[in-house]
């Protein structure tokens, strides 16, 4: 099933794209699984996600821990800790 994947801040720069439409295999159940699978897609993806402590995720625009299940998510976003305000 295709899911929209968004990247922000330096993760976007490292990946080299802000948005991708990806179809992970059925074995990908959690956000963490998704990250592991993403890292196999290209050296750029691998490099962007090498420090998991700096990665935050949102599923369908809600913050989630990396252990969360993806379920029927339409949109998954990855970004570093936020620095607004």
């Amino acid at each position, binding site marked *: 099933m295709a899911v929209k994947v968004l990247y922000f801040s330096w993760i976007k720069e490292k990946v080299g794209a802000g948005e991708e439409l990806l179809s992970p295999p059925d074995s990908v159940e959690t956000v963490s699984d998704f990250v592991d699978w993403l890292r196999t897609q290209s050296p750029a993806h691998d490099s962007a996600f090498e420090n998991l402590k700096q990665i935050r995720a949102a599923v369908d625009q809600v913050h989630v821990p990396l252990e969360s299940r993806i379920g029927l998510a339409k949109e998954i*976003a990855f*970004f*570093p800790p*936020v*620095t*607004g305000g």
Partner: protein
Amino acid sequence: MIRVQGTPFDPGAEIKSFLGRNPNSGGIATFIGQVRDFQPVQNSSSSEVTSLELEHYPGMTEKELERIVEDSFTRWPLDDALVIHLYGQLKPGDSIVLVCTAATHRGDAFASCEFIMDWLKTKAPFWKREQTQAGTTWVDARANDTERADRWAKD
């Protein structure tokens, strides 16, 4: 009310109309965050900041700010609340964020205004990139912001 916009706003004029909409609120607390032209954060360049870019996550930003404001209404008896946040290219002295809260008593106005700012700092999907003479750098999150936000965790 929530506004996320790419064009500058006038905090004085916004506060004036917020007061006009809430003539019966005894206490109004507001906070304005401005772009500084220096950066005291440890891990940042000491060069002067010439401009600041604020990237955000369109759609989620608005939803997250709405969630924070709704949460503040469940915690304090508020009459009204307003959050305006800029994104895009900013210059030193520009106002990045305005939070206004209105309540009968000042304690509720102060607490909710600070709560909204603390949660916004750790939950609203914005990322700052500074432009200095030396180049551009993404600003790192401050551990202190997480500590401040954690103060509001419910037991």
